[in-house]
């Protein structure tokens, strides 16, 4: 739930993702066209793995700051996505009261590895790597870059951190914040992929929950009160109708926009047919009776990147609402039996009124974000 009286609008969407890199339009074109960034990559010390990695890119093309030379790959992804979100919302810099909620499950594994090399080799780790390698460094850089003196929270709970971030950002806007920045980033280093491959091979229960191809990137959203957004003439991607956690004993969640009768879009997070079916049922639908429903599962496009995936799902839902378009399913997505029409084989125009973003991790559904088309 969102415990406030404000109507919360998403006015900025910024991304640094393997599809479209830092261009939201290119990202949506790639996703709606069914493209996937998941590829086979060789591992540094032999073997190979499937992952969605960033192509070569330069953060300095996006952010004009001397800070970037000191940043970890994680911080670069975060600040590039943040800059793009601010641009999209029409902010040269954030308004005065603008809390930041940043999520990353794994932090900067590359800088941590480099610090360890110095520490283990000579007992002298680099202070630069230490301060820039800790998980909250990206939020710190964003605060520094834009002079943000509002609270900056770094969350490491996984995919569901996106729900926490949206809930608390909405509450703070309700309390008078001018806007809020909600974002996430994950980085995939060679070291991370190599150690992950060994971890998966160990066959432990925890490793089985991490079996999906990993992804990397950054996504940020600007949230603000819809009346404020309207007042300054900002473009509204979508309105947030609610954000909820799923309790173990609640097998149904409230559908969005109960007063509305239009078609609905589901932005799902499962990575296999049985998981997709279970997720649809959990959202309160009854396959095969799925008239007026279309769905996408962005992890087939971008891999598993925890809260980044959750916010990318949210972005896809916004674009689907705005463009009245359901993405073409990637070739790797095999729809559950009888639900081929829910995951269109070609991009499909549909008059969506509302959307549900279902957020899960390797151990099952965690939460939902409900969106309404503006207007």
């Amino acid at each position, binding site marked *: 739930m969102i415990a406030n009286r404000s109507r919360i609008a998403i006015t900025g969407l910024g991304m640094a993702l393997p599809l479209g890199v830092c261009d939201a339009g290119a990202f949506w074109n790639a996703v709606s066209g069914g493209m996937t960034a998941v590829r086979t990559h060789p591992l540094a010390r032999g073997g190979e793995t499937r992952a969605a990695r960033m192509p070569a890119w330069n953060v300095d093309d996006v952010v004009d700051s001397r800070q970037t030379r000191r940043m970890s790959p994680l911080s670069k992804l975060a600040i590039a996505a943040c800059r793009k979100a601010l641009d999209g919302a029409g902010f040269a810099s954030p308004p005065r009261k603008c809390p930041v909620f940043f999520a990353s499950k794994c932090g900067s594994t590359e800088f941590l590895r480099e610090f360890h090399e110095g520490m283990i080799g000579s007992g002298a780790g680099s202070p630069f790597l*230490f301060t820039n390698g800790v998980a909250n460094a990206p939020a710190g850089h964003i605060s520094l870059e834009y002079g943000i003196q509002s609270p900056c929270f770094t969350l490491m709970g996984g995919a569901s951190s996106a729900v926490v971030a949206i809930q608390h950002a909405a509450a703070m806007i309700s309390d008078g914040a001018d806007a809020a920045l909600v974002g996430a980033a994950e980085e995939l280093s060679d070291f991370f992929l190599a150690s992950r491959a*060994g971890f998966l091979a160990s066959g432990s229960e925890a490793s089985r929950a991490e079996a999906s191809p990993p992804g990397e990137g950054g996504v940020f959203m600007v949230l603000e009160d819809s009346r404020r957004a309207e007042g300054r003439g900002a473009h509204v991607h979508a309105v947030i109708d609610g954000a909820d956690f799923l309790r173990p004993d609640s097998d149904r969640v409230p559908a969005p926009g109960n007063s509305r009768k239009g078609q609905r879009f589901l932005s799902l997070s499962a990575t296999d047919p049985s998981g997709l079916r279970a997720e649809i049922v959990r959202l309160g639908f009854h396959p095969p009776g799925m008239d007026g429903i279309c769905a996408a599962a962005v992890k087939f496009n971008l891999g598993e990147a925890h809260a980044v995936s959750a916010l990318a799902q949210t972005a896809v839902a916004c674009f689907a609402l705005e463009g009245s378009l359901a993405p073409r399913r990637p070739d790797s997505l095999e729809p559950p039996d009888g639900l081929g029409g829910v995951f269109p084989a070609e991009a499909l125009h549909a008059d969506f009124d509302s959307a549900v973003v279902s957020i899960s991790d390797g151990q099952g559904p965690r939460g939902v974000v409900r969106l309404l088309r503006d207007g």
Partner: protein
Amino acid sequence: MGKLESVAVTGMGAVSAIGCSTAETSVSLAEGKCGIGPVSLFDASPYPSRIAAEASGFPAIPGAGRGTALLFKAVDEALAQAGLSAPIEADLVLGTTLGGMERGTAFMRGFMQAPAKADHSLLDDFLPSCQLKRCAGRFGIRGFGEIVSNACSSGTDSIGMGFERIRRGMSEIVIAGGYDPLCEFVFAGFNSLMVVAKKQCRPFDANREGMVIGEGAAALVLEAEEAARARGARILGYIRGFGAAADAFHLTQPSPDGRGLAGAARAALASAGVTPSAIDYINLHGTATQYNDAAEYNSMSEVFGPARDSGKFDKGHDRACSGRRRIAGGCLLPDCARHGRRSAEHQRLGR
């Protein structure tokens, strides 16, 4: 905003270098016990500082790291005091700086020597989300879980997040806490920043020489007051307000004028609906670094007025011994107050 819930504290747990429970810690605080000693958990000889505040007396958890063991001890105590047992319909919000980094370092050593032979099972309890899941599983906590990683304010911010959730009706019960085990990574990191003391930790002393790294865990059970009373829980205290802020000054150094902390303090007062004159006790971070203590002094003076005659700068001794455990001092405050005890030490403020 709609009706705000009153937030009660119904359980506390703490483990640190000066006690393996809140009762032990409370006595140690009152007696002025110091938990600092030579580092025994790893070879500290390459580093300028070789002292730390290591916890002891808590049970190890097979297959899990030191952070998990510390966390379990504190949460177990807090839940017992609150009278909660599995299944527990509560949310779990934990704060940590580095989670199970000692396991990560152990893995990294093996990986650097021979990648194929590295012990990948160490990664089962490396990331903070691992401890979160283990804690929820061990105690049957069925609500949502979150990790707040805001460096040294992680524990305080986890309490703040739990407080806000209950106050706004988003949660009914939140188990909020913080944990950080001593590990070579954090020890090496703060040594690399040249902010550690070689001999003694002396917060707010004119001759302070830096911090001493410690370890520990602390947990609070927070509940909507009405629900707590309905189930007959004993109420230990209340959280009335919470504030947080950034200073946008530097990645590791606070703004010398303390504007970030002053902003957080003002926000907390506003959240509680009280004026500075209503505050009787302030528990500061007090790391004993040059930058931190000066910034804290300046910020508190700005918000609460000059400190020398106010008696508001009382510090828990744990802060002097283990500067990273922000939660424990705060959660022990109700206990100390109830027993009529105050921490023994008042140090002269030296900027």
